[in-house]
Every structure is written in C-alpha cells, then in structure tokens.
C-alpha cells in the first residue's frame, strides 16, 4: 500500500514541478527547450514500453516520430499556402501541382488523425509481418534500423514531395497563433506536458493490467507463453503499435514546439540516441525512460553550450559511465538506494522478509 501511495506522490510531485514550478522559474526560451525534451520523452516512453517491458529493441522509432511530424508539418504548410497554393519548397523544386497524397492533409482533422493512425497502421503491418515469423532480438533491431535508414533516403530523394534534406520549416500560423510568440510556446509546453502525463498514466495502467503481465512474460520467455496458449505475436504487435502511436504524437508536437521537421531527426542516429536515453534512465521502469530522455537532452544542450567544441565527448562519457556503473540506469540506482535505506532502518533479523525480486536481465 505504501508503495502505491509513494508512486502517486512521486507522480504528483513531478507533475507539480513540470506544470507549476518550471513555467514560473524558467525563462520562456528554456521552457521551449524543455517542451522539446518532453516530446522526446514521449517517444522514450514508447520505447520503454516496447523494449523495457516487451523486449522489442526498436532502433527505428524515428520513422514513427517522422510520420507524425510530417503529417503535422504537411497540414501547417498547406494552411500557410492557402487554398490552391503550393508549399514554398515545391515552387523551388519545380513541382507545379499539389501531389495527390498531400491533398487530404489540408484538412486539420484528417491531419491530426493521421498523426496517430499512420504510425499505428505502419507498425501494425510491420508487426504482423515480422512477429508472426518469430523475428526477434538482434534481427528485429536490425530490421527496424534499416527501416529508419530507408525512410531517410526516401525523404531526401523526393525533394519535390517532401522538402528533401531541408524538411518542412517556416510555418507562419499554428492554429491561429504565431509559432515564435512566447504565448504560443508556453501553451505548446503545457499541451506537451499534459500529453506526456496522460500517456504515462495510460502506459502504467497497461503495464499493470493482465496484458502488461503477459507482455513481460513474452519478454522473459516467449516460447513458454506460446506453450501456455497465448499468441505472443499479437501481444508484441499491439505493444509495438502503441509505442509507434506515441512516437507519432511526439513528432506532431515537436513541429510547433521547434518549428521544423527534417530527415535529420528521424534517421538511425537520432533513433539510437533515444534508445540510449532510455537505457540511461532505466529501461525496466516507464519513468526511467522519461527521465533518461530528459537527462540526455538536457545534458546535450548544457554540454554543447558550455563546450561548443568537444561536447560530444562529454555526452559519450556520460553514457559509458552510466552503463558501466549503473547498468539498470538512473531508476535502477534509485531503487537500490531505496532498498538499501529500508534494509538499514530495519533490524537485521527481519532481513528475510521478502527481498525485492531482482528483475531478470534480458538479452536485447
């Protein structure tokens, strides 16, 4: 019981920090950066679900982030261009009529639905094809990574349709607001924080449900689950689709927050960075994934501002330090500290009353 209470207390504390303290303390520019970190935290939450709970090491989450981001970007571009108008990059790329697949995105409802539905559909298709064939472990990781690489090549190659390397940028109007105005950035921050909070609670509920137990069971012994009569492919496909939907939503929020979506955000490296962030935060806990994404991105900004020349080394050092000294990430360290304190408070005789079961290490 006290465990549960403590969980809610922590959640309330973090919510208070994000929704009340941060907007009061941080200057507008820093708040906007925090909004960006929270977008990545949403993707990380999805990775935490798929990888930490389900054992699916997805190295191509950038694809879903991109699908959501581009859906949003396409709507904003068409909105700026006005009826019948072409987005600016099409004009200089020699495209004279609006391509058919762009047309539905002029409607905000369609675009917002596509933000979630397109990534989910792609993930469902991919999951059905892949998990039924019992592709897992390193093979799944490689496949998802290849997907990210292919997606980037496609986007860059089709400059007239996608904006090429430049991506989609220069938005003038975000649902009636000026994207660079402080008030817009502030409200985007709140929207992002709320979405993250809701998704976190939802994911937590999911993990605690029967489905969640099944998911962990699939992670720790897929064949055993199959012999018990469940279909692991279905469980994995659904989870993968949920994590893809989260990434799509994050991408869509990222566009108004930062003001650009480009292939450099979706390739292999950014996708890997997010997995690294989840590992740093602690992949076995959903909160760890979020924490990791915030720590990593905060460190990235902080290091690069202070040491513009060599910040990448520091970031690498941070990763190596965490992985060698605390393989279960920041949350793992927290759990250990908590257990150690509890043990110290109790008389040594009571030591035998159920130590917290260690979670099994799973080969990625």
């Amino acid at each position, binding site marked *: 019981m006290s465990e549960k209470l403590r969980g809610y207390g922590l959640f309330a504390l973090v919510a208070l920090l994000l929704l009340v303290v941060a907007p009061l303390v941080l*200057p*507008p*520019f*820093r708040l*906007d*950066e925090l909004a*960006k970190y929270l977008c990545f935290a949403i993707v990380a939450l999805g990775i935490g679900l798929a990888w930490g709970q389900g054992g699916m090491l997805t190295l191509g989450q950038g694809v879903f982030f991109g699908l959501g981001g581009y859906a949003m970007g396409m709507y904003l571009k068409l909105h700026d261009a006005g009826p019948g108008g072409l987005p600016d*990059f099409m*004009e*200089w*790329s*020699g495209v004279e009529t609006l391509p058919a697949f762009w047309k539905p995105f002029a409607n905000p409802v369609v675009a917002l639905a596509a933000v979630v539905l397109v990534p989910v559909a792609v993930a469902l298709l991919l999951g059905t094809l892949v998990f039924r064939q019992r592709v897992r472990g390193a093979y799944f990781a490689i496949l998802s990574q290849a997907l990210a690489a292919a997606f980037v*090549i496609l986007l*860059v*190659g089709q*400059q007239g349709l996608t904006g*090429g*390397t*430049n*991506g989609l*940028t*220069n*938005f003038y109007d975000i649902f009636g607001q*000026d*994207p*660079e105005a402080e008030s817009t950035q502030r409200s985007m921050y709140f929207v992002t924080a709320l979405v993250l909070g809701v998704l976190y609670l939802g994911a937590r509920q999911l993990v605690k449900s029967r489905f969640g137990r099944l998911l962990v069971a699939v992670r720790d012994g897929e064949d055993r689950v199959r012999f018990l009569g469940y279909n692991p492919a279905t469980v994995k496909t659904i989870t993968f689709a949920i994590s893809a939907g989260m990434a799509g939503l994050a991408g869509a929020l990222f566009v108004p927050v*930062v*003001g*650009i*979506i*480009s292939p*450099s*955000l979706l390739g292999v490296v950014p996708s890997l960075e997010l997995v690294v962030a989840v590992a740093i935060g602690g992949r076995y806990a959903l909160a760890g994934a979020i924490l990791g994404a915030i*720590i990593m991105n*905060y*460190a990235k900004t*902080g*290091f*690069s*501002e*202070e*040491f*513009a*020349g060599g*910040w*990448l080394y*520091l970031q690498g050092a*941070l990763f190596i*330090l*965490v992985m060698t*000294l*605390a393989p279960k990430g*920041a949350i793992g*360290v927290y759990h*250990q*500290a908590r257990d*150690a304190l509890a043990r110290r408070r109790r008389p040594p005789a009571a030591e035998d009353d159920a130590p917290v079961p260690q979670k099994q290490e799973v080969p990625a």
Partner: protein
Amino acid sequence: MRKAFLRRMAALAILPSMLLTACGGESGENASGGADGNTIKVGLLHSLSGTMAISEVTVRDAELLAIEEINAAGGVLGKKLQPVVEDGASDWPTFAQKAQKLIRKDKVATVFGGWTSASRKAMLPVFERNKALLWYPVQYEGLESSPYIFYTGATTNQQIVPGLDYLKEKGKKKVFLVGSDYVFPRTANKIIKAYAKANGMEILGEEYTPLGHTEYSTLVNKIAQAKPDAVFNTLNGDSNVAFFKQLKSAGITAAQMPVMSVSVAEEEVGGIGIDNIVGHPVAWNYYQTTPGAANEKFVKAFKAKYGAKKVTSDPMEAGYNAVYLWAEAVKKAGSTDVAAVKKAAGGIALERPEGLVTIDGSNQHMYKTARIGVIQPDGLIKEVWNSGKPIKPDPYLKTYPWATGLS
C-alpha cells in the same frame, strides 16, 4: 554487494555534478541586450561537430579572426565585440534552436552562421519572427531574399552563371551534371538546364547521389560512355574525394574532360588529393592567391593565428567579410539596433581580400567579382578568368531572359 552499490552511488553523484558544470553559464540569463557595458555580444553559429564540421570550423576561425582584429583596432562604437560560439552540430533543427538561444538568452546584436542551405532555411523563420539579423557566408542556390539575412557569399549569377559562361567560351557544348542530392545541386542544375537550352549547350545526363556517398565507379562509367566535353560538379563534402579518385583511375584527365566544381575550394583540395584534381577548374569569388594588399594581410593574419599550413578559402573570406561589413553598418548607424543597421547597410562598400564588396540594400546580397580558377600542383588555385568588375547580385535571375519561369 554493498561495495558494488557504493560504486554505483558514486556514479550517481557524478551525474548531477557534470550537469551542473554544463550549466555554469546560466547566470548570464538576464544580461540585458547585445550591447551592455563595454561589450557587444555577437553570435557565431556553425557546425563544430558532425559531417559539416570540417568546413564550418574554418569559417568560424575566420570570423573569430575578424572579431579579434576589430577589437584590436578599438572595437565598434567604442565597445569590444564578444563572440558567443554555438554548435549547430550539422543538424538543422539544432541550428533553429541555437539561433533562438543566441537571440533570446544571449541577446546578441547579430549572428554569423550557417553553411548548408538546409541550416539557413531552418534558421530563417527564427530570425524573421524575432526580427534579428543573420549573416550567411556561403555561396548558395539563390531564389531567396529574407529581410533579416545578409548573404555575403555568391548567389547563382555570381558563380554558376559565370562558370557556365566560361565553359561556353572554351567551346564546351556537351555537359554532364553531377550533384549531391539536396536543394543546392537540384536548384543549380535547374538553372544550368535553362541556361544550356538558351545557349545551344546539350545536357547529356543529370545524376544525384546522397550526401556522404562514396561509390562512384558506376557514375564514372556512365560519364565515360556519354563522352561529354565537360562535367558540372555540385557534389559536396567527402563525395568529392571518391568522385575525383575514381575519375582519375578511369583515366579521365582535366585536359580532355574538365570538371567544373562549385563546392571545392582550397580547404577541400588537400582532402581530395592534389594529384586527383589538379588542372580542373572551379568557380568562386576569392582564392588564396587573389592579388591585393587586403588579401595579403588576411592570409598573413590567418596563418599567424592558426598555423602556417592553413589555407584560406572563399567561404572563410565571406565569413571574415561579414563581420567587417556588419561592423561598418553599425558604425554608420551609430547603434546595433537591427532596423538601423539594415538601413545603414545598403551601399556600404569595403575593399576586401576578394576586391571591392558593396552591399546591395534592395536584396541584402553583395556585389562580387566572379573568378574562375584552375587547381595547381601546389594545391592552390590560380585565377584564369574574372568578370572584370563586381557583378550586381540577382538572386531571382530576373535580368536573365532565359531564366524566366525558374523562380
């Protein structure tokens, strides 16, 4: 167990301390304005990491040199310039965010930055919406004229068009186009095709490879079979190394099939290997060998600061110029206020290493002299042709009848 745990706690203790050091500069958060006390803050935003770092670091170095020289000569409006350097990390969204940081947190008076068109396109809305100034130092594909950007590199009619004029003058009728797959090569080739159509030239092929591509044997075969008189090369970065190497191993020489490059300068020649590229022409507005007292001084100062083996190139010189041109505009305006600087900038003419540079107030581009050069066995570039006088910038090619319908 206990010991292992202690070790982990130590790691935990290191984490926040690392983050704290990283944010030591936060105290400057409320510094008021780009011009406070005795300094004027200016932002330098280039990629110091990632694929573009190798090129962009040299531009940053040239800009730092200009700032140092201006400070040594007494600064601007009696105040010293204080550079705030940020890393764009070869990542366009990072450029947008760092630009915002420089404008809003550091409150710099102006920013010098960017290299790739993608980084400029990403920064453009940030500068326009915040009404701040960006000085962009690299030749680019034109078709743009933001009121908050000064373009100190060449636009198409000061580099690509003269390059084509040169090929035409040399009687090269059949041309093959090779480029990296992004906005600059694609737009440049669109212009080249329109030019070719109007000038009786024939385009035998147009090929694009992804940025960073290094496998060129197929493409070189294609070129060898097409037998063009010349190749127009808009490849960027490392790709040039592989392309020129494979061209040479296929036995194609500069004498029989010159490759005109617009993104290969002194800095890149060393990386490509002088043997692989010697004799091929390039189109720019400045070379290390460009005669004149201003250039002698620039080359000497640059070598003194960064080492005798360093070379100077066109984008570096354009970055170096940008700082001087901005400083001149500030002096003329009597303030660092963006609107006042923009107003004062038009018509400013300075004798720079490349020759006379004048700011065209109407589109915020520069009058620049076009120069065609040939790569020499010592790795430097010798000028073989120039436009005689600075060419008026025409980013939308409005004064060229063959270019109607391009923009």
